């Protein structure tokens, strides 16, 4: 008997449990070996990659806010060629599904990235990041326009035959429109939310704390917004959802599952506790045990009455 079964299925992704690391908080999968075993996770999402190598934004890139963090890393990454040569061989050795997160400054960039990952067997899905608030062109500019979300997704779907996740930005007036556009373009899974655009000001220096002025807010402070958006799109679309935004513990994760997410992303929690993601897996399991729930699938979307 499969008691307290944590298995979850999202499109073609079969995960042993619903916990996925969020992009940009888990490096390329091997950095935290000292603190956890990646095979205990449902899947890992890799640090976002762009076509060309990127040095990222100026420092300071991080600022703490009440129960939250602002970041403006700016997608520092080795670029797709180095990623394929140096990172992919390492990923291939990991016993966990891996999701590559791709970011572009143009539709062409997204297509090129998706195309070059088409034959990489160790990449189980791509997450199309139309929502990074920290790059000047592209990124969030795509993610706030349903027509652009549709176009990017459709063009990526033409060249990539594997599972496509589209990651949405919360910096929009109507999240449902964005989700619908991604699904129409061919998204197999929707993940949300990316960070909320925000800022902090140093009152002694009388200037913004972040060198980039604005940054993306994450952590417990954004959880209610993220949860609301997952709840809203669950009613509107038929593809599975990866819910994320301030998930710090098993209780938070359960809330997202009840709101309609088939899996959850854990991000900022890892910056506080490197092993947070695996701790959350065991806390979800405890919840199932305590509530006599046989399969996690039973609670997905249960909060909708």
């Amino acid at each position, binding site marked *: 008997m499969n008691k307290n079964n944590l298995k979850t299925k999202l499109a073609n992704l079969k995960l042993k449990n619903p916990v996925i690391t969020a992009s940009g908080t888990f490096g390329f999968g091997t950095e*935290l070996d000292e603190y956890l075993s990646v095979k205990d996770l449902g899947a890992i999402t890799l640090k976002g990659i762009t076509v060309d190598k990127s040095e*990222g934004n100026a420092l300071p890139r991080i600022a703490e806010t009440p*129960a939250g963090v602002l970041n403006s890393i700016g997608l520092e990454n080795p670029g797709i060629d180095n990623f394929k040569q140096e990172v992919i061989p390492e990923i291939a050795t990991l016993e966990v599904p891996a999701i590559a997160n791709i970011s572009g400054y143009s539709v062409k960039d997204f297509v090129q990235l998706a195309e070059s990952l088409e034959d990489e067997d160790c990449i189980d899905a791509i997450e199309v990041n139309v929502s990074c608030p920290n790059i000047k062109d592209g990124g969030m500019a795509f993610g706030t326009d349903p027509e652009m979300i549709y176009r990017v997704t459709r063009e990526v779907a033409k060249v990539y035959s594997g599972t496509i996740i589209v990651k949405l930005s919360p910096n929009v007036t109507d999240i449902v429109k964005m989700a619908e556009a991604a699904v129409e373009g061919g998204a197999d899974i929707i993940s949300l939310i990316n960070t909320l655009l925000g800022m902090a000001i140093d009152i002694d220096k009388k200037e913004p704390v972040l060198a980039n002025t604005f940054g993306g807010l994450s952590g417990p402070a954004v959880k209610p917004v993220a949860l609301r958006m997952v709840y809203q799109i669950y009613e509107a679309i038929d593809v599975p959802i990866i819910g994320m935004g301030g998930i710090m513990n098993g209780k938070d994760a359960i809330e997202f599952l009840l709101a309609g997410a088939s899996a959850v992303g854990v991000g900022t929690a890892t910056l506080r506790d490197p092993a947070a993601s695996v701790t959350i897996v065991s806390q979800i399991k405890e919840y199932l045990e305590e509530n006599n729930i046989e399969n996690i699938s039973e609670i997905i979307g249960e909060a909708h009455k």
Partner: protein
Amino acid sequence: MLVKDNEKVGPGIYKMALESEEKIKANPGQFIHLKIKNDSYDPLLRRPFSIFDINKKENLLTIVYKVCGRGTKLMSEIKSGEDVDILENLGNGFNLKNKNKNIVLIGGGMGIAPLYFLAKKLSENNNLRVLLGAQNKEELLFLKNKFSKLDLKLDNATIDGSLGFKGNVVDYLKSLIKDKQEIDYIYSCGPTAMLKELKKIVVNNDIQAEASLEERMGCGVGVCLSCTVRTINGNRRACKEGPVFPLKEVIFDE
């Protein structure tokens, strides 16, 4: 780790001794990442502190910190006997291979903290001179007294002139170089502006030097890329490849 004591040792300056159940392995220049509250998400992130001293016999690790924000303010209120969550042995410390050399240690402000642990190690086999800089005498008193018990030559510099050389510690180093003081190697830690100035001096005088950088950190374990340091070899993470870097390799913003 268990907080053994947490006492005020200067204006807004505290010394916290932590007791570990396991053997402490840390090297000078490495840091710990301390979670201020276990039961609250505010403050959310840990705070990094370089190691001031360790006592292997008693399994004690000591940090010295200055209250400069909400996190450190809350830290200063932690009582003896409380448990704090710590990530240990983080980053790469100072090079300890130097022997029989004329070495100068330069610390500015709280950047002095990791140099004490380093001085204890290096003074065994080297001719050590230590230059400490701070705003005023009160800020320097505790640290200066600790160094003065070691086998080394100690100089102090204060901006207001209340102790030792009047001015910043890098200017004091310049005067030593002008007086033909022989220096084989420099170790340093302090604010970025100080290290930037120091880099010019070591480049101009062709002195080998390494510095521990104080960058704002997120995770402390190499995944968030908040503490990126620009070097001639490309971007490096202060928390992982650093915090200690060969000073000539660090690229400071103009």
